[in-house]
């Protein structure tokens, strides 16, 4: 895969991981992970609990620091230099399993605070941007409410809008629907499908296989800190080559 | 049969505890003398000054032998034996300040107390005296005499009013020597300071009171009180006339 990298124009490569490792003390959460994501590509990441999926995407916007290998985002390598990190983070939006909306701020404030502090956008413009994305996730009427007043699905859509307000090049999703009631899952997935159609570069950790089938360019399977298998969704689900992948897919699809 | 006796235990040289834990002082000697004569054992209870009378009334002990002056106000609440020691007050202040607190007749000059911070013990006869004579005085109230000397030395009060015998012994001839002195004459108005210091007891114990008064008179007659005083001072601190009924 490293060879392949040089074949693409650098401009086309949005995320590049070269032999990335991550240790927590003794424990190796990521082992020699290499990966390349092109601009506009949609990746779905799956795998058993503890396999390192969250760790992987958290390394990509440096919520965790990788301990070996190289990570290059849109041509910028992630190193220890803080300046760079905030610049990179601006390009990478992230949506968490548990929404993590700021509970003491209205929805609108949630959407404008980072714009104002990080991008120094003037108040008025920040509000316009916020309303634009709130419309996009179909809840402009909730702008003046507080997070607890919204349902889980609405909160997660706000979280997505909040990330979009920073106009990132890349969106990372870490099990965005797994904390939701069954009925609310689809409204969030709808928004994500919509984003995908717009050409956003996305990495999404999820076990929603319907979603994977309809939007993913590649599905990847992780286990024990390694990328074990990847492929386009149809062949991946129909004919997993790897033993472990097959077992996992059987388990989550059987019932 | 024993009686419980309340005292401060920090009021040297009248009642105080030595570092090996023994109670000593003039009050203690008097107490022991009375105990021998009336044939009752005493047990000592230490109590802060401001709670002395409430504690007696609440039966925390049966007698107060703690250098308590016999005053009319106190007599409304408790009974006293006949006196066993003089009761006077005197102001102590820094050497060399010509404060002119008293006129020639020994009366306080009200204006000259202005701006002075005056230390007295809470619930003492000195406090009563100031409240009556100089109601505007800036009084600082202490729970114990020793704390008052400390604060005088530290400059937290300008003068204090206290028992001259005690001040002489515990302060003026010790730490305060050369720096502090008596200011003005002894103040001795029976209206405030009473006829002297006596043993306090709850009302309604007339028999016991009379026994104790008799014992005190006996101590005077036998020269015991003089003996106790001379252990500490070069002079006696009672009036021989008190030996008469």
């Amino acid at each position, binding site marked *: 895969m490293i060879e392949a990298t040089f074949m693409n124009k650098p401009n086309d490569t949005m995320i590049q991981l070269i032999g990335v490792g991550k240790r927590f003390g003794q*424990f190796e959460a990521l082992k020699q992970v290499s990966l390349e994501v092109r601009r506009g590509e949609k990746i779905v990441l799956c795998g058993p609990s503890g396999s390192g999926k969250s760790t992987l995407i958290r390394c990509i916007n440096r919520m965790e620091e990788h301990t070996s290998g190289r990570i290059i985002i849109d041509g910028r390598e992630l190193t220890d230099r803080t300046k760079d990190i905030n610049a990179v983070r601006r390009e990478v939006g992230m949506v968490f399993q548990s929404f993590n909306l700021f509970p003491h701020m209205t929805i609108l404030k949630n959407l404008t605070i980072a714009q104002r502090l990080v991008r120094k956008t003037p108040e008025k413009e920040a509000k316009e941007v916020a309303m634009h994305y709130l419309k996009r996730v179909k809840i402009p009427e909730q702008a003046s409410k507080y997070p607890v007043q919204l349902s889980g699905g609405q909160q997660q859509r706000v979280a997505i809008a909040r990330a979009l307000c920073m106009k990132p090049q890349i969106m990372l999703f870490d099990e965005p629907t797994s904390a939701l009631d069954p009925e609310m899952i689809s409204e969030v997935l709808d928004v994500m499908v919509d984003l995908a159609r717009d050409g956003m570069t996305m990495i999404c950790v999820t076990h929603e296989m319907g979603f994977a089938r309809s939007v993913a360019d590649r599905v990847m399977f992780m286990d024990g800190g390694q990328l074990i298998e990847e492929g386009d969704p149809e062949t991946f689900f129909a004919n997993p080559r790897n033993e472990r992948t097959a077992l996992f897919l059987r388990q989550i699809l059987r019932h | 049969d024993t009686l419980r006796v309340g005292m401060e*235990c*920090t009021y*040297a040289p009248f009642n*105080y*505890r*030595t*570092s*090996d*834990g023994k109670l000593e002082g003039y009050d203690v000697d008097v107490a022991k003398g009375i105990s021998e004569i009336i044939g009752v054992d005493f047990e000592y*209870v*230490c*109590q*802060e000054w401001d*709670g002395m009378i*409430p*504690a007696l009334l*609440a*039966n*925390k002990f049966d007698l107060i032998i703690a250098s308590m002056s016999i005053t009319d106000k106190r007599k409304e609440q408790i009974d006293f034996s006949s006196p066993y020691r003089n009761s006077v007050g005197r102001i102590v202040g820094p050497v060399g300040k010509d404060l002119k607190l008293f006129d020639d007749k020994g009366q306080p000059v009200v204006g000259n107390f202005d701006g002075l911070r005056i230390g007295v013990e809470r619930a003492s006869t000195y406090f009563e005296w100031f409240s009556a004579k100089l109601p505007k005085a800036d009084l600082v109230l202490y729970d*114990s005499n*020793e*704390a008052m000397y*400390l604060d005088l030395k530290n400059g937290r009060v300008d003068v204090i009013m206290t028992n001259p015998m005690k001040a002489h012994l515990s302060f003026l001839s010790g*730490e305060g020597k050369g720096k502090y002195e008596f200011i003005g004459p002894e103040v001795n108005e029976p209206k405030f300071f009473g006829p002297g210091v006596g043993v306090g007891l709850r009302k309604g114990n007339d028999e016991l009171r009379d026994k104790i008064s008799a014992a005190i008179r006996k101590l005077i007659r036998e020269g015991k009180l003089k003996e106790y005083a001379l252990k500490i001072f070069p002079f006696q601190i009672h009036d021989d006339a008190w030996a008469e009924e």
Partner: protein
Amino acid sequence: MEALNGWWDDYLLASVTVAKVFVCSLILMVIFGLLGASAKLSSNRLANAVGNAYTVFFRGTPEILVILLLYFGSAVSLTTIARVFDPSVAFVDIPPFWAGSIAIALVVGSYATETFRGAFNGVKSGSIEAARALGMNGLQTFFYIRIPEMWRIALPPFGNHMLSLIKDTALISIIGLNETLFVAKQAASTTGKPFTMYIVVGLIYLGFSTAITISVLLLEALANRHIQRRPS
């Protein structure tokens, strides 16, 4: 430092007094706390009112006042009560040791009331439902499920209550209990070295607090041994 010569045995004896007060008031505090919590949790309105009055009064009144009240007031009220039954009674009285111990136990017990109440309510209702679903009766559920769980929840605040108790013992010097601060007052007046004398008291209390803190940590480890996750 030589000022301290001759006072060490007094401090030692006084420390023993502090320890005695601590133990007595600890036992009383647990009793008051449990009584208060039961009163507040009870469905009886009178009990509720008494429980509330108890916590409101003792949480709002300075400890020193409670001590003075109990020391001076107890004799007055106890005597009045006693005379109702036996007019020949002259005086009933609580000595400083007990007046002080009861006073600080009443104050800290009012805090413990809330702790115990919270711990009772804090036991996950899931465990209790499961016990009921298995057919266990109320008493069995109480002793096998509620109490062990509650104990774990109540322990950390309970440790704080013990620290409050030990520190409040210093206040009993005000009514003449011969404890460390009282010794220091006398020693300070005799030697003229107040700083030295009071620092010693501080160090003694620091020692007591440390011992209590360590014991509570050990007890917590014991109570929580079953929620230690497996090492991964």
